[in-house]
């Protein structure tokens, strides 16, 4: 299969059949004929908000024609991997979780890639496809050429250059290759660069894979004044917050809230750790508001974590049956719905709108008047401090230390990680990856410990609340007890694992890799002094 586009503004008016009949004849041995009626279809390309399918080399399209709705999953080379006909009127309403798709090979391929993220439309278009047949001197069809005149209908109407797809009939690849070469010789027709999805996105000024707030997308130069660099980084985080608000309010999937929280935490960390490099008073003015925003999101996220891990928790039951926990599950769902209503109201509130508007304006006002320190110096100093604090917090932990101490260390590690990620563009990606390897492993261990700690506390609270309802069966409380015991076991395992993880992190080699990021020679040599 080869694809071409008819370039130029007159693309829509180009008479492709006439152009081919006049120029692509392979010395008179080839003729072109109409391949049948023009087919019209509505096309809807689907992906997760963070382009997981695209990044995995997959394209998922819902095509509707003549009352038939079909999902088509193609790979990087455009070959069909799986398809699924959806019952008329019974297809999922997008956005939708992959679990809502009919069971089958398509779902099996998409599910591990999309994970907990919902699939939603990234671009919609209407296609009118006419077909031509290329025939040899026996009047045998040797190849088919689809002429797709597509127009984008969502997110906004746009015209797309006509796209030609040449497909060989089996056994005629050789002659089809020659036809393909001849087509590229036709003035105005060129080999297509990118898929139909990419062409449609380009028509509306979008690019597959673009994601608001992606830290790696923010490119800093080492000599940039620190305040201006921080404004750039914080604006990217604000973009991420705002980009995730609609999905959080509509409750499309749990990752919108998760990503929103990460952007809030990164913002808060930058203000806490680098606030002195910002204009005076800015951090102290906004930190309480971002704290409010963070707190607003916490109850829903905690319940999300519970519900996302619910299947795993029930699978681990030994004495109780999963059905015993149904009242608990219902309770979690009800609580989550109530907390989400509160969260959505907060995100729709004037307070939130004021915060984002004022914050964006304040960031815009940060100029480049102060040349010192450079961002390279600031990053080196702050990463170094955060590294030292994490190390010290960890060294204070003994076998007798309470859970709070591990939680403190976890917070220090998060701060260090955020700094490394936020200033990531100043470092070599491979060097950065090496530097955080042991840190990541330590964070995973601390995360498992802390999640279990929080959930153990919460399950006790849930049990009390369920008891006060006086409608909870004894089986449910017993099963919840078993869950609490399971959490305690998981927490003990994480605690046992901790010593090794921290020793790895604190090892001279690991620390040296982190310290390498704080040197201002190498990639950051161009930076000026503070």
């Amino acid at each position, binding site marked *: 299969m080869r694809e071409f586009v008819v370039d130029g503004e007159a693309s829509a008016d180009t008479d492709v059949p006439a152009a081919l009949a006049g120029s692509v004849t392979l010395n008179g041995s080839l003729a072109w004929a109409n391949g049948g009626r023009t087919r019209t279809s509505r096309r809807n390309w689907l992906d997760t908000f963070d382009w997981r399918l695209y990044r995995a080399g997959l394209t998922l399209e819902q095509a509707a024609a003549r009352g038939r709705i079909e999902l088509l999953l193609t790979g990087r080379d455009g070959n069909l991997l799986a398809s699924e006909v959806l019952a008329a009127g019974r297809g999922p309403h997008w956005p939708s979780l992959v679990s809502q798709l009919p069971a089958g090979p398509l779902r099996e391929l998409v599910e591990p890639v999309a994970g907990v993220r919902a699939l939603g439309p990234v671009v919609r278009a209407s296609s009118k496809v006419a077909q031509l*047949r290329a025939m040899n001197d*026996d*009047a*045998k*069809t040797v190849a088919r050429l689809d002429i797709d005149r597509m127009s984008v209908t969502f997110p906004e109407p746009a015209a797309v250059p006509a796209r030609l797809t040449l497909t060989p*009939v*089996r*056994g*005629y690849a050789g002659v089809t290759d020659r036809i393909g070469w001849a087509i590229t010789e036709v003035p105005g027709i060129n080999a297509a660069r990118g898929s139909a999805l990419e062409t449609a996105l380009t028509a509306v000024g979008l690019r597959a894979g673009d994601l608001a707030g992606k830290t790696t997308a923010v490119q800093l130069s080492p000599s940039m004044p620190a305040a201006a660099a921080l404004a750039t980084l914080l604006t990217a985080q604000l973009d991420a917050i705002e980009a995730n608000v609609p999905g959080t309010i509509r409750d499309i999937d749990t990752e919108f809230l998760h990503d929103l929280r990460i952007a809030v935490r990164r913002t808060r960390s930058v203000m806490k750790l680098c606030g002195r490099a910002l204009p005076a008073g800015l951090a102290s003015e906004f930190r309480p508001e971002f704290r409010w925003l963070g707190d607003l999101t916490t109850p829903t996220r905690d319940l999300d974590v519970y519900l996302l891990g619910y299947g795993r928790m029930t699978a681990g039951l030994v004495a109780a049956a999963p059905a015993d926990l149904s009242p608990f599950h219902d309770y979690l769902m009800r609580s989550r719905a109530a907390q989400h209503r509160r969260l959505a109201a907060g995100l729709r509130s004037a307070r939130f709108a004021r915060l984002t508007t004022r914050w964006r304006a304040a960031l815009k006002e940060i100029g480049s008047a102060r040349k010192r320190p450079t961002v390279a110096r600031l990053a080196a100093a702050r990463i170094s401090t955060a590294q030292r604090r994490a190390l010290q917090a960890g060294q204070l932990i003994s076998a007798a230390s309470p859970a709070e101490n591990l939680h403190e260390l976890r917070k220090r590690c998060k701060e260090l990680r955020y700094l490394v990620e936020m200033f990531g563009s100043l470092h070599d990606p491979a060097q950065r990856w090496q530097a955080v390897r042991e840190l990541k492993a330590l964070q995973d261990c601390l995360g498992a410990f802390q999640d279990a700690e929080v959930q153990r506390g919460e399950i006790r609270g849930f049990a009390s609340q369920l008891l006060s309802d006086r409608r909870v069966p004894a089986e449910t409380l017993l099963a919840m007890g078993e869950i609490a015991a399971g959490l305690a076991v998981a927490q003990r395992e994480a605690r046992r694992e901790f010593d090794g993880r921290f020793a790895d992190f604190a090892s001279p080699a690991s620390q040296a890799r982190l310290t390498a990021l704080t040197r201002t020679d190498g990639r950051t040599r161009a930076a000026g002094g503070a």
Partner: protein
Amino acid sequence: MKIFATYNIKGGVGKTATAVNLGYLAARDGYRVLLWDLDPQGAASYLFRIKPRVKGGGKGLIKGTKSIDSAIKGTDFDRLELLPADFTYRNLDLLLDAAKRPARRLAALLAPLKDEYDVVFLDCPPSISLLSESVLHAADLLLVPLIPTTLSVRTLDQLTEFMAGFNGHRPDVLAFFSMVDRRKRLHTQIAADLPAQRPDFAATAIPALSVIEQMAVQRAPVTAFSPRSQAARQYGQLWQEARERAGLTG
């Protein structure tokens, strides 16, 4: 994958017309169909405008040194593909004789295609030979076109008797009357009586019609270029009987 074979010891009885039209109808019903033109005369290949030639010759195919996959050609119709005839097929008996377990050779060659096709049609040359035996071993349903004469019915009995001696796999048989000339009393009488008396006969008969002969001019199945003709309707009914007999579902 269901394998149908159009077979008769005699030539000119409508084997190719049956394979071509039923193959087209199966593809139209949504099945992925392969038609293997085993007749060196290459009539089925001609009807689909495909050159009766297998690159490297048919010898490699039978010996297994050349993959069937690379020899298959797409027809002008969706889901219908053809393994073209080759002039070397005139020596198929000799090639099969040189192969291991010659009677099972075709079945072995077709086995790897079971995921790619739902239906295979084998269009056989008129003969009773090692090739026929290999076809009979491979087929699930043998479609036997017969001109309604007493002698041709006798040929069918001989065939059934021949297959009775097979060990293991034996194809089901669906005979039907072909080229029925309504002007001939004997034709109409035999075509009316026998199907009611014998379970191996299809109720549908294919009449002798000039539109069927037009296939050689149009170079396409009559079911495709004249889908509302009487001939197309009769082939449609025959296909329904054949697919039911073969237990083809979906």
